[in-house]
């Protein structure tokens, strides 16, 4: 697989730098050919702080034709933009904030607004030539898509649904024996989709059926110009002939950081609207304990981390990412003694076996991104957590067992990058670079994890590596559960997650005023309040507003609060709140249940999501023959399925 690595924020940018480091030796920054990164991967840095981005010498402005480049998504919003005014006036969010709000829910809220507010969409379409979500579109079309195989799509809308069907079928089948190139071209062929691959909400972007490239050109101020900064500029236009294009996305972000992971789900959704099966993975670096270098309180960061993890892990398969590779910064800081450059380098080294392109000749197309996606998601409805365990050592005969052991236990040079018990994993994916025996590796993993010694549960991907050393990266899928006491034990996944959930909850409890800012518009406050706290917050607000009927504004606010409360009470099933869900997560962890996070949460459209908890309950009740579904529940389920089918292109909305 060739991922397009998207670094988000400061952490993402620094780690991305290691991925994109030029393998060639430049002379005064000049190069005769393309920027050559490891295995030809491409990447872009997304950041919201222009000042931070400009300080980084490694990146240049993508808009100026530099590569590697950075994008500041808010820049797409023009100075006199109507949507800017609209959002500011109606929701109280500043779309062009120079440095992103470090509130964890900020980006989530902003993207939800664009998803849900029809009026805003209309304004956006008028202003951005048919694009109803300019920031997402900008990130995708300007920053990521040009480097992917999707940029090869002819985008002829007249191809019609038949080709879309073919596309879906062929993607689902993933015929074996294809080479990487064949796969890419196959995806390229089937990508003659019209925009029938719309989003699950049913919003049909008719304009998207037209040529996306034209839409790209519509963002005329953003069309790149060729520059003479040492590259031939072809990297800035990833659809240039003959380049190795990416067949997946790998987001790198810190969980709990400033810019955060808020981009990931919206961008992934946007990608899914074009290509439902396009693989997207996340490498999330969990914030360390204590106060970070920017002075952000641990509780705030943990809340941010939890929200980030929550959002990533609760988006259903087919709508969100295909896997979250978790790395604990606490372990990295301890291992590398706070040497940040070494940490960044280490993350890259650890991921090398995953992204290495040079397969053993006899395994064909083992590591292509669609195959990875399929195996990661096998048997799951929600994206998995993947814990990386890594080891590298000098080549020696019979070293497979040694490598596995060191990696899984993080001993003698091995690195287990997130606390967990390997025996809890339900699958293991082993990526090696070097000369190893598949059987020996599998046997060793079986010995240490208890997973069945077969290729269905322990998958080994062997790649050609550096001379003289063997490397191994083991991704343990969902290595937690079935142990009610685990959350108390140091070194377990449950314990670590439980800790940050707990701290996040405490922060929620203690810092309400920092979370729901006073100056926000009422509707936004209400949405946030109910998202975070639920009905209890409404009650609390109403109570505070008692006796303030004379104040017009407060009176109006009280009215809205009352309405919101009554809407809530009228719901048959209470929409989940963050507070509630986090409490449930803690309970699940205490009971040893999986997954840790279950229900997707939205801020502004909370009623539209079918609760996964409810699904589980219903499934259980059905199995037990205990209860029947309500009409509403049936309607919701049917609608949800129809949405899925529309999203998959199986049917088309009239």
């Amino acid at each position, binding site marked *: 697989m060739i991922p397009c690595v998207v670094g988000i924020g400061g952490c993402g940018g620094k780690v991305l730098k290691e991925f994109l480091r*030029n*393998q*060639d*030796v*430049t*002379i005064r920054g*000049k*190069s*005769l*050919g*393309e920027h*050559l990164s490891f*295995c*030809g991967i491409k990447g872009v840095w997304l950041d919201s702080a222009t000042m931070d981005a400009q300080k980084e010498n490694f990146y240049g402005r993508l808009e100026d034709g530099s590569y590697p480049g950075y994008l500041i998504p808010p820049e797409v919003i023009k100075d006199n933009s109507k949507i800017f005014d609209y959002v500011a006036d109606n929701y109280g969010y500043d779309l062009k904030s120079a440095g992103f709000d470090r509130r964890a829910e900020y980006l989530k809220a902003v993207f939800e607004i664009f998803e849900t507010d029809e009026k805003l969409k209309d304004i956006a379409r008028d202003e951005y030539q048919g694009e109803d979500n300019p920031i997402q579109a900008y990130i995708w079309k300007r920053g990521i898509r040009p480097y992917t195989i999707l940029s090869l799509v002819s985008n002829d809308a007249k191809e019609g649904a038949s080709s879309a069907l073919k596309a879906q079928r062929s993607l689902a089948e993933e015929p074996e024996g294809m080479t990487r190139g064949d796969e890419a071209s196959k995806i390229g062929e089937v990508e003659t989709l019209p925009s029938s691959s719309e989003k699950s909400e049913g919003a049909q972007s008719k304009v998207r059926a037209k040529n996306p490239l034209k839409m790209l050109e519509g963002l005329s101020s953003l069309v790149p110009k060729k520059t003479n900064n040492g590259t031939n500029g072809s990297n800035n236009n990833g659809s240039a002939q003959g380049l190795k294009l990416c067949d997946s996305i790998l987001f790198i972000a810190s969980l709990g950081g400033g810019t955060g992971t808020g981009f990931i789900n919206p961008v992934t959704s946007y990608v899914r609207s074009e290509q439902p099966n396009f693989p997207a993975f996340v490498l999330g670096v969990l914030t360390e304990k204590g106060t970070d270098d920017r002075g952000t309180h641990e509780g705030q960061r943990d809340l941010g981390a939890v929200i980030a993890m929550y959002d990533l892990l609760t988006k259903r398969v087919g709508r969100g990412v295909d896997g979250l590779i978790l790395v604990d910064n606490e372990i990295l800081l301890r291992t590398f003694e706070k040497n940040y450059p070494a940490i960044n380098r280490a993350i890259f080294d650890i991921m090398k076996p995953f992204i290495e392109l*040079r*397969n*053993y*000749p*006899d395994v064909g197309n083992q590591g292509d991104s669609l195959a990875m996606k399929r195996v990661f998601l096998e048997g799951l409805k929600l994206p998995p957590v993947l814990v990386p365990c890594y080891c590298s050592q*000098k*080549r020696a005969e019979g070293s497979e067992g040694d490598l596995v052991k060191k990696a899984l236990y993080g001993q003698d040079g091995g690195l287990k990058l997130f606390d967990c018990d390997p025996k809890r994993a339900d699958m293991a994916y082993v990526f090696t670079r070097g*000369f*190893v*025996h*598949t059987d020996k590796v599998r046997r060793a993993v079986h010995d240490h994890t208890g997973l069945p010694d077969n290729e269905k549960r322990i998958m080994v991907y*062997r790649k*050609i590596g*550096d*001379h*003289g050393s063997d490397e191994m990266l083991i991704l343990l899928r969902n290595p937690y559960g079935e142990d009610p006491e685990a959350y108390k034990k140091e070194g377990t996944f449950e314990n670590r997650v439980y800790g940050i959930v707990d701290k996040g909850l405490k922060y929620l409890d203690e810092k309400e005023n920092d979370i729901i800012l006073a100056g926000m518009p009422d509707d936004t406050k209400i949405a946030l309040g109910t998202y975070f706290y639920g009905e209890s917050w409404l009650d609390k607000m109403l109570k505070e507003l008692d006796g303030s009927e004379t104040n017009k504004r407060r009176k109006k606010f009280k009215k809205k609060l009352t309405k919101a409360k009554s809407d809530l009470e009228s719901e048959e099933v209470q929409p989940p709140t963050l507070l509630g869900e986090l409490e449930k997560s803690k309970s699940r962890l205490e009971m040893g249940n999986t997954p840790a996070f279950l229900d997707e949460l939205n801020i502004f459209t909370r009623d539209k999501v079918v609760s996964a908890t409810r699904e589980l309950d219903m499934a259980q009740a059905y199995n037990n023959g205990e209860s029947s579904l309500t009409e509403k529940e049936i309607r919701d389920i049917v609608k949800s399925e129809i949405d899925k089918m529309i999203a998959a292109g199986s049917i088309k909305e009239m």
Partner: protein
Amino acid sequence: MSLDLLAMLLVFGLLIVGAGLHKRNMERIYTKMVALSSKDVSKKDLYEELSAPQGSNFNAFALTAWILLSIAVAYFYFLTPRISLEFNYLQIAPLAKSPIGLVTFAAVVAFVTTVAIVSLDLPKVYSFYEMPKRLKAAIMSTVPVLGVSITCSTYMATVYPPEFSTTFISALGFVTLFGSVAILLSPIYIRAMGVTK
């Protein structure tokens, strides 16, 4: 055996041994791969997988370095009657008395080397070896080093017949030449030492 002949044998010996070691490296990898594979492995497929691009800058400079190496060898040994009284540049009257004789001689050597490089697909050879940036930079830096060797050889020709005072220049020319050969072949030698472990 004269010192010059010995020096020439050293240089060519290094090149030949390097070629042999490269072949051996490839064979060893192939053997290992065959032992680890469940199916038949074709060498072509293996080498296709094994190769990784090293970058345009590196390739361009490496190619330049090899061309300069061949010129440096030709200059060091055949510009003056160091090795052979009959076969040397100074015996080719039209060249030796021409103001562009030196560059013509070099151009002929460069042409032959270019043909050889294209036939042998030299960048492909380098693509089989993992090279840290420092090693790449070292290989690229052989370009000016070989320039020094060529300059020394040219100086020796301009003052020919040699005097005692030119011994240092001659030695410098050889050391830079030999060192460059060693650096250019270092990925092969490093790999050979690593694989044998």
